[in-house]
C-alpha cells in the first residue's frame, strides 16, 4: 500500500484543503485553549462555547500539518451541537482507536473520522491527530471549572 492509500486518503485531503470551522470565535461565553505539540512545534487555539451542557460552538485556529488539520476539522464537525457527555464518549472512542489499535466502531454519523485510522501505522503522526482532541479535553475541563485560557501539550 502506498502512503497515499494509507495516510493521505481522499477524505483527509478534503478536510486538509477545506477545513471546517476554522478561525476565531468571539463572545463572552467563549473559552480559548492553546494546544502545543512540543516536538514539532505545532500549535493551535481551540475556541469553545458550551451552553446548557451542549457544545454550541467550536472552532480551531491553526497552521497544522494535513493530519492535524484534517483531525481538527473532522472533530469540530463531529462534536458541534452534541451534549458534553456524548462528546466525551466520542473523545474516548477516538483515542482508543488511535492508541489501542482497536478497530473501534465509530458511530456511523462520524464515519469521516475512520479515515484517520491509517495514521496508526505512522506513530509519529498520531500526536498530530490527537492534538485537537487533547486540547478539547482540556477545554471541557476548563469549561466545567469555569477557567479561562490555558496551554497544554500532547507529549
Amino acid at each position, binding site marked *: 500500500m502506498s502512503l497515499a492509500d494509507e495516510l493521505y486518503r481522499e477524505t483527509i485531503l478534503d478536510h486538509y484543503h477545506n477545513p471546517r470551522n476554522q478561525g476565531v470565535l468571539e463572545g463572552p461565553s467563549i473559552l480559548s485553549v492553546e494546544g*502545543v505539540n*512540543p516536538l*514539532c512545534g505545532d500549535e493551535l487555539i481551540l475556541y469553545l462555547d458550551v451552553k446548557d451542557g451542549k457544545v454550541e460552538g467550536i472552532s480551531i485556529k491553526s497552521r497544522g500539518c494535513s493530519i492535524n488539520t484534517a483531525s481538527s476539522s473532522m472533530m469540530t464537525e463531529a462534536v458541534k451541537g452534541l451534549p458534553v457527555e456524548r462528546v466525551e464518549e466520542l473523545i474516548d472512542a477516538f483515542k482508543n482507536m488511535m492508541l489501542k489499535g482497536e478497530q473501534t466502531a465509530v458511530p456511523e454519523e462520524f464515519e469521516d473520522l475512520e479515515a484517520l485510522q491509517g495514521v496508526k501505522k505512522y506513530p*509519529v503522526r498520531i500526536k498530530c491527530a490527537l492534538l485537537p482532541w487533547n486540547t478539547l479535553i482540556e477545554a471541557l475541563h476548563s469549561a466545567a471549572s469555569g477557567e479561562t485560557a490555558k496551554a497544554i*501539550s500532547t*507529549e
Partner: protein
Amino acid sequence: MLDVARVRKDFPILDRIVNGRPLVYLDSAATSQKPQCVIDSITDYYSRYNSNIHRGIHSLGEEATAAYEGVREKVCNFIKATSAREVIFTRNTTEAVNLVASTYGRQHILAGDEILLTPLEHHSNLIPWQTLAKERDAKLVYCDVTEDGKVDVESVKRLINSRTRIVAVTLTSNVLGTIVPVAEICTIAHASGAVVFVDGAQAVPHLPVSVQDLQCDFLAFSMHKMLGPTGVGILWGKAEILEEMPPQMYGGNMINSVWRDRVILNQVPWRFEAGTPNIADVIASGVALDYLQALGMNNVRAHEKQLSQYALAQFSKIPGIKLYGPSTVEDRAGVFSFNLSGVHPHDVGQIVNEEGIAIRVGHHCCQPLMRDLDISGTARASFYVYTTEEEIDLLIGALDKARKVLGHVACR
C-alpha cells in the same frame, strides 16, 4: 545460582593479559565490565539506526526514539517503579544527586533546616548537600555508625526531627560494603515529613531493589556499574515530587513553547533532559538491564554472598590484615576494604597489579569516612557476576607478596 563459567564467556575483556597474567578484575565497584551483547548494541545502533530522537519524522528517528523511550520502561520494571515517567536519564549518579539538590533541595531547604546523612556517603552524595546547606545556612547532620560499619538506626531516630527536610543515604557503602536498612530509615523519615534520597550506585547493580519496598522518594544509580556503558545514570523520583520540580538545565527537548522572553516547559520526565541525550548508551543500558534480569537479581545476590563468605574466610587468614565493614554476609555486599600493616594501599595496588590483578586503592571518594577511621585510604577488592573464588585466591597470594616486598617483615 549463576553459571559463572558461562557468564565469563560473555565478557571479552576477561581474555585480557595484564603484565603477562590473565586479568583478574576486582574493581567492579568502580565500574563493571561489559558483556558482548551490550557492546554489540552500541555497534548495532550506530550501524543501523543512529539518529537524533524526539524531533524526527523519518524512520531512523522513529526507531531511535522508540528504543530510547523503551529503556525507561525497562528501568521502571527493574526497580519496580509504577511509571516510566518517573525515570530520568542523567550522566551518572553524581549528576542525579546534583539535579535533586539544586532543584528540590533549593526549593525546600531554608535557613535552619536539617539534612541528615550517614558517615558512609560517597562524595557524590555528600558535597551537593553540603553545598546546599552552606548556600541556605542549613545544617548537615550525620548519624552514627557502629564499630563494624553498620548504620546505627537508633541514632537516625534520635536525630530526625521536624526540621529535617531531606535524608540522603546510601543503600550500600562503596567502602565498607555495608547494606543500610533504608526501608526502616524511610519509615522514620516519612513520619517526620522528610523525604529520602537513596544513593543506589552500589546497591542496584548487586541486589534486587524495589522502590515500592523501600518507599523512598528518590533513587539514583549508574549504569556503568551494572554492565552498562559509561555516560548513563538514572534518577528515579516519585511523580508527584518531580511534577513540582523546576528543571536543572534548559535547552532543546525540554520545552513546550519558546518566545524571545519566555518559555513554557515540557512535562516530566523530558523537562529534565535538555539537549541531545546519550542515545546510544541509554539504549545499550536497556540491554544491560535485560542481561541482569535474565541472570536474575536474586541469583546475582546469592553469588556475591557466597563469594563474600569465601572472602571473609580467606582474608582473615592473612597476618596483619585489617578488614573493614560488617563481618556477616547478610549485612554486606561484595566490596572489601582492607589494609596490610606497614604497607600503604598504593603499594598494595601496585604490587598486585604486577600480577595482573586490578583492585582500587585510596579514599574511594569517601574522605570523611577515612578521617573517621583515621586512615589515609584502603585497598579495596570488589566482586560482580563474573568473579570467581579462584580470583580471590590469586589476590590473597599477591597480598602475601606485597607484605614481603614492603611490609615490616622485610624491614631491615
